[in-house]
């Protein structure tokens, strides 16, 4: 078999069919329905079992074909055209005369109708496979707000976004990435808001991808990010259509990948990972408080264990006397240095967390009970760790889950260990150095040309309305600078009506 030699379809139906069979190696799910009449073989319908909608195949194509073929054959003129335009009562049909696109359509779930004595084939849109329904988001839960999440189907996902933004300016560009998987990827943006430079950059970077397969948007994320040398995500991902719609309204670009409910959003800023969709649905004051709370949680996750280590092993003079005596009493008999103790506990926690995620749901309960008992009770009773350390580890663990974006929460947990090491070697001085290095690093990051720490550095006053604080919607008249270079105004000042 050599596809490159026989690029085009043959006139003979038989040889076409055998070519298809040979190309697919007689795959089980390849169905070839031959339709004969008195004159012999007249036509064949080829489709992939499981990728096609059987209703369309049976009722629309086969029924009509079987009944109308006779009349059709009697007609003069282009039989193919007639079939295509008049007989097949399906939404979309394409005439194809080359093998490569034909195979692509076939594998995308289209049915291919081959006719005798015709070098062209009619491809009929008949995709239909078992899709997950639009369900509730699982990774980004809100109390108030839409309860729908993206699915694995890119068309559904596009529709979910379209349903939120009904504007022709919402442009979609599609492409296939992956030499083998031919995964369809769409970029969506609001043409009159998004910065053309960023859109162009996205196009360019996606175009440069040259990989055999894309199975999840994570592939794309790593392939187009600005730098790999960082623990921080510079591309935002979400399974919430409302978050994507909000991002599009701010002038960001969404990248949808077929086969995954996680849609990418660029450019991503540091602060974005601390914002939840719900912030915009709750009252402004509540949202502001929650954001500050998340920031505090972020600080606790980052610093609590290292500060504990630094203070208890280097700067005991900073503790109030009674607290010092209390901690010292707890540490009596603990065999490890505080750093090892903390490291062991944090590792244990990470293991438990990972186990909890990978575990079948039914076993999860058991693990959490064992974990609590092991960490909380037995270890302290046995005198292997001090109770204060358990408190520190637990508060760190819980705080790390407050950060809405998982990618950020994982980064923070990673950096925490570095800071713990610095704290164990140099106390507060080490933590301070680590902090300076961290900020230096964050400042060197960019997401699609936008500084990662934007709004803070460079400090943009007008962006403060929606960074750490969230002002009421009446005050948020403009979009964030830099992601939306043009069309900044979001709402006109309202006419104050006297009631």
């Amino acid at each position, binding site marked *: 078999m050599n596809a490159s030699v026989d690029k085009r379809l043959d006139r003979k139906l038989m040889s076409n069919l055998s070519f298809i069979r040979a190309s697919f190696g007689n795959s089980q799910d390849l169905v070839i329905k031959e339709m004969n009449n008195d004159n012999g073989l007249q036509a064949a319908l080829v489709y992939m079992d499981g990728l096609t909608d059987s209703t369309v195949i049976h009722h629309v194509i086969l029924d009509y074909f079987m009944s109308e073929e006779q009349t059709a054959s009697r007609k003069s003129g282009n039989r193919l055209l007639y079939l295509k335009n008049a007989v097949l009562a399906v939404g979309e049909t394409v005439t194809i005369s080359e093998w490569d696109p034909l195979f692509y359509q076939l594998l995308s779930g289209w049915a291919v109708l081959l006719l005798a004595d015709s070098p062209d084939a009619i491809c009929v849109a008949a995709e239909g496979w078992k899709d997950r329904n639009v369900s509730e988001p699982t990774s980004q839960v809100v109390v108030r707000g839409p309860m729908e999440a993206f699915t694995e189907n890119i068309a559904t996902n596009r529709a979910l976004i379209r349903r939120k933004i009904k504007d022709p300016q919402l442009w979609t560009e599609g492409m296939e990435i992956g030499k083998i998987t031919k995964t369809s990827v769409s970029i969506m943006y609001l043409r009159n808001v998004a910065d053309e430079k960023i859109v162009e950059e996205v196009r360019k970077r996606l175009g440069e991808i040259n990989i055999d397969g894309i199975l999840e948007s994570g592939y794309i994320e790593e392939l187009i990010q600005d730098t790999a040398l960082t623990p921080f995500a510079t591309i935002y991902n979400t399974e919430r259509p409302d978050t994507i719609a909000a991002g599009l309204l701010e002038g960001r670009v969404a990248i949808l990948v077929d086969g995954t409910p996680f849609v990418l959003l660029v450019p991503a800023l540091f602060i974005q990972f601390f914002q939840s969709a719900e912030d915009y649905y709750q009252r402004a004051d509540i949202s502001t408080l929650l954001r500050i709370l998340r920031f505090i949680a972020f600080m606790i996750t980052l610093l609590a264990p290292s500060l504990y280590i630094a203070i*208890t092993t*280097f700067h005991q003079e900073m503790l109030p006397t009674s607290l010092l005596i*209390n901690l*010292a*009493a707890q540490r009596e008999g603990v065999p490890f240095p505080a750093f090892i103790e903390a490291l062991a506990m944090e590792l244990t926690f990470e293991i438990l967390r990972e186990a909890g995620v990978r575990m079948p749901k039914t076993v999860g309960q058991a693990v959490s009970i064992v974990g609590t008992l092991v960490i909380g009770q037995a270890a302290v009773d046995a005198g292997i760790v001090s109770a204060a350390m358990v408190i520190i580890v637990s508060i760190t663990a819980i705080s790390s889950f407050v950060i809405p974006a998982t990618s950020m929460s994982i980064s923070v947990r990673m950096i925490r260990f570095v800071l713990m090491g610095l704290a164990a070697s140099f106390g507060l001085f080490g933590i301070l150095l680590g902090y300076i290095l961290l900020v230096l690093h964050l400042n060197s990051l960019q997401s699609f040309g936008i500084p990662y720490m934007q709004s803070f550095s460079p400090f943009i006053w007008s962006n403060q309305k929606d960074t750490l604080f969230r002002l009421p919607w009446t005050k948020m008249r403009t979009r964030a600078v830099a992601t939306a270079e043009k069309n900044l105004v979001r709402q006109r000042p309202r006419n104050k009506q006297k009631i």
Partner: protein
Amino acid sequence: MSRFTRRVGKLLLLMLVWSIAASAVSGCWNRRELDTLGIQLGTAIDKVGNQYRVSVQVVIPSELSAKAGGGGRSPVAMYEATAPTVFEAFRKLTETSSRKIYSAHIRVLIIGESLAREGIANVLDLLSRNPEARTDFYLMIAHDAPANQILKILTSLEKIPAENLFYALDTSAKTWAPTTTVTIESLIEQLVTDGISPVLTGVRLEGKARQGENISNIQQADSRTRTRITGLAVFHSDKLIGWLNENYSKGYNYIMDNVTSTVGHQTCPDGGYIVMEVLRNKTKLIPKVVDGKPVIKVKMKQVASVADVECKIDLTKPETIKMLEENGKQRIRGVIQGAVEHVQKTYNSDIFGFGNTFHEYKPKQWEKWKDDWDELFPQVKLEYDIELQIPKVGTTNDAFQNYLKK
């Protein structure tokens, strides 16, 4: 891609070198685990012959934790060492103690009377030079007892004797005029400033010393042996020269504006007492030169309230209040006058900082007097401008004693 790997490699190498350098050299300097520390809460320094005897009180944390509840052992341990210098003595403590003595949390420093009489400057230098030591502990002079003995007395309310002394002094300084708190920098500041001499609170032992060291001392509600904070030690330069009794101490604190709240009584016209609680007090010293002689005007404003009436007196009349105010003024004046005269005659040490007041407000005059202040101090005359208000009489107006059934 190769550039990328090279960059990663370089960065990793850099981090590696940095972290190895960091952790390899860090080793153990300055790292002290909590369970290797002997947390020192109290220190007593005595002079024995030519040597210093340092006694430190170290907490036994497990005896103090909420969970353990104490197994009937003493919550503190005392370590003592004697050496020619204080610092050597401190380090020598490790001969007997299993842990390094950690001094950042010291609450009280008790100096033996004999050491105080010889001068305390050397001791203070060590404490102010040591970066570890904090400055919020109180200094006291052991009165009529070796300093280490004071620290050994176990008390019931606070498990740690040093904490007991700290809080006892802290509370009494806030609510009882005759005591005052002195921290190390204020002491050093007073030692180096012209025209002021320091005082330190004294602490004395009541009961048998031996008994106080025993845990049985705190097994009864009324401990046989206790410590009592009382009186002020008067210094001249850094040497102790004498003591002030309770009344003189009160006068001292009035002048120094150390009184925030205290209690005082007056005699009623028909005998018996009426007790006043001082709510607010503010004293200001105004230096004056009258006929070329130093005069200090004591300007004082006090707000008091009637706390207890133990005599027949009609508190409903404004005249009575007026009279109480007048009497009160006289009393305060008497207390102050007594204290100043006593110090002028007996010790001739300017513990009231009169000289410093001149230095602050009349610097030119002070330049002239500076050198013969020791002769001038006993001649300082006092003027008074005392204002006493009694705006409140408590929750009852007239005392019920006035209506007692016969």
